C-alpha cells in the first residue's frame, strides 16, 4: 500500500522529478547498451546510434511507464472530464437543453417520490390522511391571519355538511413515555392534539380532547413505537 501511495505521489506531486528520472533512466540504459556494443568493436557514435535504434520509440516507452504509475485512472478520468467540459462549452445550446432536461427530470422524479413516500410508504397512522385539512380563520379587513375561531363558528363548520368532522387542534410539547418498544424510554416530543370524534358536539375544552394523532419529531423507530401505542 505504501508503495502504491509513493507511486501516486510520483505521479501527482513530483511529476517533474519523475519525468527527469525516467528520462535519465532510459538514457542510462542506452549508454550502457552502447558501452557493450563499443566493446564489440563499434565506434562510440555508431554504438550509440545502434543502441537507440534497438531501444525503439523512447516516448512510447515513457508513456507506458507513466501509465504504470499509481492513480492512472485519475488521470484518465480528468482527461475525460476535461474533454466533456470542452464539448459542453463548444455547443452551449445543446448543453443548456441537456442540463435543463436532466434538472427537470430529476426535479419531477423527486417530487413524485416525495408524494409517494409520504402517502404510500409512510402514511400518517389514521385512515384517509389525504382528506385531512387545516382550516384557519383570516380577517382580511383588519389584515389579521389565523386569528382563531369562536365556538359558534366551529359549530357552523361542523354542521355545514362539508366536513365529516371538525375539531380544534394545536401543537404542544410533551414528555412521552414509549412503552411499546422493548425498552421503555422517556423523550420530549411535539404532538398535534385534536378532539376525539366521539365527542362531536361537545365544547372545545381541553379536557374533552384526547390525543389521537401525533406528528412526532423523532427517529422513525421512535415514531413507529408511538404510532403503535396510539392505535391500541
Amino acid at each position, binding site marked *: 500500500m505504501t508503495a502504491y501511495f509513493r507511486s501516486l505521489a510520483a505521479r501527482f506531486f513530483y511529476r517533474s522529478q519523475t519525468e527527469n*528520472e525516467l528520462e535519465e*533512466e532510459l538514457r542510462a540504459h542506452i549508454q550502457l547498451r552502447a558501452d557493450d556494443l563499443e566493446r564489440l568493436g563499434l565506434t562510440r557514435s555508431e554504438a550509440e546510434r545502434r543502441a537507440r535504434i534497438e531501444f525503439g520509440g523512447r516516448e512510447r516507452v515513457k508513456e507506458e511507464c507513466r501509465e504504470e504509475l499509481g492513480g492512472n485512472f485519475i488521470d484518465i478520468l480528468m482527461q475525460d472530464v476535461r474533454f466533456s467540459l470542452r464539448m459542453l462549452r463548444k455547443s452551449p445550446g445543446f448543453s443548456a437543453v441537456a442540463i435543463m432536461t436532466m434538472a427537470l427530470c430529476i426535479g419531477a422524479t423527486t417530487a413524485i417520490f416525495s408524494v409517494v413516500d409520504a402517502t404510500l410508504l409512510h402514511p400518517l397512522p389514521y385512515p384517509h390522511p389525504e382528506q385531512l385539512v387545516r382550516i384557519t380563520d383570516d380577517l382580511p379587513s383588519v389584515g389579521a391571519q389565523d386569528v382563531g375561531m369562536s365556538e359558534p363558528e366551529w359549530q357552523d363548520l361542523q354542521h355545514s355538511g362539508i366536513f365529516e368532522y371538525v375539531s380544534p387542534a394545536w401543537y404542544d410539547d410533551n414528555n412521552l413515555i414509549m412503552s411499546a418498544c422493548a425498552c421503555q424510554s422517556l423523550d420530549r416530543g411535539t404532538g398535534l392534539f385534536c378532539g376525539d370524534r366521539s365527542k362531536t358536539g361537545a365544547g372545545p375544552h381541553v379536557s374533552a380532547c384526547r390525543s389521537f394523532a401525533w406528528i412526532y419529531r423523532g427517529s422513525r423507530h421512535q415514531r413507529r413505537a408511538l404510532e403503535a401505542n396510539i392505535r391500541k
Partner: protein
Amino acid sequence: MGNEAELLPGTLDLLILKAVSLGPLHGYGVLLRIGQISGRALLIEQGALYPALFRLVRQGLLKASWGKSDNNRRAKFYELTSKGRKRLREETDGWNRLVAAIASALAAQPQET
C-alpha cells in the same frame, strides 16, 4: 536464433523478479541477466522492460534507488522487497505446477480402455 522461446503473457514480471532476486540490477542489467539465466533463449524487448519495472515498483514488489554501474554510470537499481520475494516464491510454485500439469498432459499415451 532457433532455440529462442516466445515469452508467454504475464511471464515477464516473473522473470524480472527472478533476475532481481539474484542481486540488485539496473534495467539494462535485468535484460542481460534474463538472457544469461535463460541460456539466451529468452529475449526481452528493451522497451517493454521499463513499464514492467514501474508496475512492479508500484505493486511494492521492487524498490528502486540510484547508484553507480560497474563502468561508473549513474543508473537506477532495482532490488526485491520482502513482498516481492514472497510473490516470486508463489509465482514460481504456480508456474511449476502449471508446467508439470501441461507436461503430463502432453506425455499422455493412447490407452486401452
